């Protein structure tokens, strides 16, 4: 019998998810972005307790008052308190993020999986479908959807969700193809695993990480797109306190009552930026190359 292996240096074994959590907490981008997200969630959850005024209450007498003691961020063109509207706006923002991500990620992932794991014929068909979707002018598609269903928060989210599908599909497909070609998949195949077993036990878990990173980047982008739609009048309609919609009327007062534009604009900026750097942090930690 061959000699027993001498003590080789063994690094302490820690369960993988705890390792990841530790590294996440040490990453400044992840922490900062995570903080922003956490604040958004708290504001959304506790909006009724935190917001000083009813976001829908109109008081024409107080219209366009600048930021001051009574209204910390001022009021908009019909006298609604901006701070309260911003706070309630977090709900819309998070809802948009959740719904668009769900639509894009679920459909996109399934398509990508089928394309990557299936035969080259299936792959070809699905990818051509994706290409057609991409080639279709986005604005035209949105207009069609909105014309049929009427502009609203939900049609806006649907349109953005659909537009996000190709990105996820391509990412998942290429990851699946890459993983399938890896050495360890060959090894598992040699053990007698069926293709289905390989897909679910080995390929999928390895697809999860890149997917999470992509999600964290694609979602704020989708939120921005939805807000832009609202701004163009094709998504959420006023008087909903959605940040993009808030800009629809207040833009005419850009120079006289700048706070009505600054408040929703800044909120959008901070939220999207925060999620982007959270995405950076996640990528630093989850990317196997690091």
């Amino acid at each position, binding site marked *: 019998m*061959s*000699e*027993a*292996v*001498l*003590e*080789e*240096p063994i690094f302490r074994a820690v369960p993988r998810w705890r390792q990841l959590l530790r590294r996440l907490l040490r990453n400044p981008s992840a922490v900062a972005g995570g903080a922003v997200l956490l604040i958004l969630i708290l504001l959304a959850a506790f909006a009724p307790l935190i917001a000083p005024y009813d976001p829908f209450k109109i008081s024409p007498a107080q219209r366009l008052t600048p930021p001051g003691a009574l209204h910390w961020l001022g009021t908009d063109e019909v006298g609604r308190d901006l701070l309260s509207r911003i706070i309630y706006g977090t709900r819309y923002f998070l809802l948009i993020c959740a719904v668009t991500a769900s639509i894009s990620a679920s459909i996109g992932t399934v398509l990508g999986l089928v394309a990557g794991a299936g035969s080259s014929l299936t792959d070809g068909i699905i990818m051509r479908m994706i290409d057609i979707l991409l080639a279709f002018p986005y604005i035209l598609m949105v207009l069609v959807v909105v014309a049929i269903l009427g502009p609203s928060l939900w049609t806006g989210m649907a349109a953005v969700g659909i537009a996000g599908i190709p990105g996820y599909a391509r990412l998942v497909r290429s990851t699946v193809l890459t993983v399938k070609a890896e050495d360890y998949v060959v090894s598992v195949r040699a053990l007698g695993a069926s293709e289905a077993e390989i897909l679910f036990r080995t390929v999928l878990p390895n697809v999860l990480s890149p997917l999470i990173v992509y999600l964290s980047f694609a979602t704020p982008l989708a939120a921005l797109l939805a807000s832009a739609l609202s701004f163009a009048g094709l998504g959420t309609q006023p008087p909903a306190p959605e940040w993009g919609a808030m800009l629809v009327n207040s833009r005419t007062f850009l120079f006289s009552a700048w706070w009505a534009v600054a408040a929703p604009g800044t909120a959008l900026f901070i939220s999207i930026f925060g999620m982007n750097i959270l995405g950076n942090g996640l990528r630093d930690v989850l990317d196997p190359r690091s």
Partner: protein
Amino acid sequence: MTMPSPRHDGPLLDIRDLRTQFGSGPGTVNAVQGVDLRIAPGEIVGLVGESGSGKSVLALSIMRLIQKPGRIAGGEILFDGRDVLAMSARDLGRWRGRDIGIIFQQPQGCLNPVRRIGWQVAEPLRQQERLSRKGAWDGAVALLRSVGIPAPEEKALAYPHQLSGGQAQRVMIAIALALRPRLLIADEPTTALDVTIQAQILELLRDSCRHAGTSLLLVTHDLGVVARLADRVAVMYAGRIVEDGPVATILDHPAHPYARGLLRAAPRLGQSGGERLQDIPGGIPDLSRPAAGCAFAPRCGRRASLALARCLEEMPPLDPVARDHRLRCWATPDATGDGP
């Protein structure tokens, strides 16, 4: 034979107590820990070691090619009397290529995929010797011929992906030798090549260097390569040289237990009488947590059989045991040369 005249008496390359580290703080990896090495003009020195020995890091350090998070942490490198570590960026640029060259394991990774190989060989000639385009191109073709590329006038128009591994390595050698450097460093130059091609490339290296009087530092894990080419051999383990001397000494009767272990562990053609290979138990130490004594001590059969406590407590120095033969070991090998 064009022998460059040395500017001063003594070794061409003189490395003293070189230390190279990666990272900082508690997790610092000490890849090279105090290396002393000399290379004479026209000499071929084999630097042998396994992974983690620091041999490749040493090779890169000599040319100051170590990048963040690595850095040279101490020591001296004297090339023909000049202090390499003190050179300015400009001097460094002129020294590299002209006085010293390097070739790597994967030639394809070092050749620019979008330029014809003729231009890649010609480029150093144009830059450093200020030749015209035509002059540099002719020089490049001549170089390609000298490294054994057939039909060099046509081959010079090829792109790197059109070359085989062996041809690409020949091109690398041509580029490295274009300016007739005094020292060539070859880092595992044939490891990625098939054995029949390897034999030809090694012969090319040897002949080119001997012809031009170029010294060669050959970094490899393959003892056979060293047997064929080297005049002297230095064996590295965990960042330090543990033994060096003439090739006959190191290959036929090495003194250091690790060097002996390597020679007994390597399977040789024509040797197997069914005898069992003697492996070296254990693995290389963690370079970020250096132990107090000799780095090889935990795996050393000689220490175990002689029950030497000193090996675990104190690092032995690299001392001469004979003219031109240095050893880093507390335990004197027994007279018969047998045993661990």
